[in-house]
């Protein structure tokens, strides 16, 4: 792919190309996780990497997430840059202790004398008709924790570039991959100059209300904005891209213009990232807001069985319902 510059790729393949590029550029970059080797991961995101980079750099691990993250920390201490795959969102919890008490805190514990450039890839979110634990959106549980950075791309180009940046970052990055968009294609320009990893991007301009989303919900919000446009409502859509840090400046700028904000994510609303955005933007834009910040997201319930997920997940109608409610203030 060296010669080619612009490719049309599904998100999964964009991440695959990005991992490949990172491994080519830096011999210290490793990929590890369950089934990432021969199988290429259950979503084929690491497809072909073991074949090309060997078992020493693409490591099939024992079935133990704490062990995966714990040994990745050790390898990072030795100078490696491990990119860890957690097979599904719901399986990150056995590793939660290592992530929260070790990975997040070790740089500070050492007063900066050691760095932990570990990327943890988590295919997250619902919409694929899976069984329990395969559809969750646990990002708030990581964003709350200092020492971690959390990002989520919504399209192939961001998937490619944000992975490049995450791997180059000297901080631990939790990389949330919108699994139900893995097959969505988009253009990737491998010669582009990407914007900063933690900056939000305005993906649609508008004047009446701001929609903020990230990962899988950006597409829903763009559809909602298109639908609203037909009714004469002008919605601005921000792709947040980063849940820690959150680009509050970008959200503030937009809300100062539109006066209304709806935040959309799949994760439960209660203590989801939307709660922080609502709280902080209300503080920052108290005199600009013409309606309270509304949130659309999951319920305070375990992720439901697949036959109910359509009702559980924020969809076009629910987003538009909240838009209408916000505009009605």
């Amino acid at each position, binding site marked *: 792919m060296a010669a080619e510059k612009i490719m049309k790729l599904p998100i999964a393949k964009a991440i695959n190309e990005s991992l490949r590029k990172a491994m080519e550029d830096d011999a210290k970059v490793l990929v590890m996780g*369950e*089934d990432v*080797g*021969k*199988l*290429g991961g*259950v979503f084929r995101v690491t497809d072909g990497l073991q074949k090309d980079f060997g078992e020493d750099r693409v490591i*099939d*691990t*024992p*079935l*133990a997430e*704490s*062990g995966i993250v714990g040994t990745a920390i050790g390898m990072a201490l030795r100078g490696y840059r491990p990119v860890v795959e957690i097979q599904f969102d*719901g*399986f990150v*919890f*056995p590793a939660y202790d290592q992530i929260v008490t070790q990975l997040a805190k070790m740089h500070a514990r050492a007063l900066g004398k050691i760095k932990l450039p570990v990327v943890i890839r988590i295919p997250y979110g619902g919409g694929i*008709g*899976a*069984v*329990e*634990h395969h559809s969750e959106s646990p990002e708030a549980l990581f964003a709350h924790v200092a020492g971690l950075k959390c990002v989520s791309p919504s399209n192939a180009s961001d998937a490619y570039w944000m992975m490049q940046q995450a791997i180059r970052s000297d901080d631990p990055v939790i990389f949330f991959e919108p699994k139900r968009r893995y097959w969505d294609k988009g253009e990737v320009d491998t010669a582009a100059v990407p914007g900063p990893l933690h900056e939000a991007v305005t993906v649609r301009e508008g004047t009446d209300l701001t929609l903020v989303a990230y990962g899988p919900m950006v597409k829903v919000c763009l559809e909602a904005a298109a639908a609203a446009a037909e009714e004469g409502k002008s919605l601005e859509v921000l792709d947040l891209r980063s849940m820690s840090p959150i680009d509050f400046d970008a959200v503030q700028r937009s809300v100062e213009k539109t006066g209304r904000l709806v935040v959309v994510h799949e994760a439960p609303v*209660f203590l989801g990232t939307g709660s922080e955005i609502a709280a902080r933007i209300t503080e920052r834009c108290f005199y600009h807001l013409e309606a309270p910040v509304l949130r659309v997201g999951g*319920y*305070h*319930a*375990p992720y*439901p*069985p*697949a*036959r*109910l997920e359509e*009702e*559980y997940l924020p969809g076009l*109608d*629910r987003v538009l*319902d909240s838009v209408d409610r916000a505009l009605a203030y």
Partner: protein
Amino acid sequence: MTVESTAGRKPRRTTAKRAGAKKPPAGAPDTAGQPELVQLLTPEGKRVEHPEYSIDLGPEELRGLYRDMVLTRRFDAEATALQRQGELGLWASLLGQEAAQIGSGRALRDDDYVFPTYREHGVAWCRGVDPTNLLGMFRGVNNGGWDPTGNNFHLYTIVIGSQALHATGYAMGVAKDGADSAVIAYFGDGASSQGDVAEAFTFSAVYNAPVVFFCQNNQWAISEPTEKQTRVPLYQRAQGYGFPGVRVDGNDVLACLAVTRSALERARRGEGPTLVEAFTYRMGAHTTSDDPTKYRRDEEREAWEAKDPILRLRAYLEAEGIADAAFLAALDQESEELGRHVREAIRLMPDPDTTAIFEHIYADGHALVDEERAQFAAYQASFAEEGN
């Protein structure tokens, strides 16, 4: 993954013979380079004795085991087919593991308690769980949904290894109650790497809990062979925690029954946990979503076909004159009926009401759930109004 059931098929004696020819003398374990395993029935269907484990079953019981395995396989094949037809979102087949599951499952008493993984359809069968109940989570209508206390068969657990601790705690409770029942925890070779399983070993040993850890080493954890989990046979893990481990031929239903029964009796006697490693093979894909051609050779699977748990018992039953044509024909028919029952049941299985999202989250209620349920109802109602 091959979905066709071998139930009702003639045992392929030629294959069995060919495979047998390469093997050490009958009675010795047939896995070259592998440690001793308890075997009571060779792949060729010959009864052998073992110094420590014996079993003496009547014809009725032997036929029962055969029937269990055949029907379980049939159910499993039916479920795989239903997945292909879009009736299930996913299916985790037990193909090849029937002996491990029926042998261990039939060793249990009614008052024993079972903590399965997501693949113990054969054990569920032994517990009397209506097999169609197992389909709910794979269809996506619930996350388990049967009453675990009804048949002392806990819900399927998807987070690998967690249930080993639940089983241990349950067994600690059994001991506290002074009951003489036992608990069995199922898990796979992959699961053996999870910290939770190790902690279950520690707790069960320290509290001498009446629990049997039944590890079905089917040699694969999705795409990873057992070498990625351990460099010594898994049954040896137990010793370092202070309780016995034993490897049994997981494709030999008699040995699985004998070894599990013995471990359960040990537990009942208050002698604490045992680790049973049933050495078997996952004949199919990990689940219907998996594609094993990406990571394993067909020959491996073929070699294991010669050790098929059903064929070997059938060979024995036929050789001993325990299973006659009438029995086999009746079983064929029962298989067909089971298949029909399953197909019908799945098509009748209703989708849950959307309000189920808000049900059973808490036993004592929760204000936020109430609020969200009400909001959801109002939101739903708003469409109805518009629709009017």
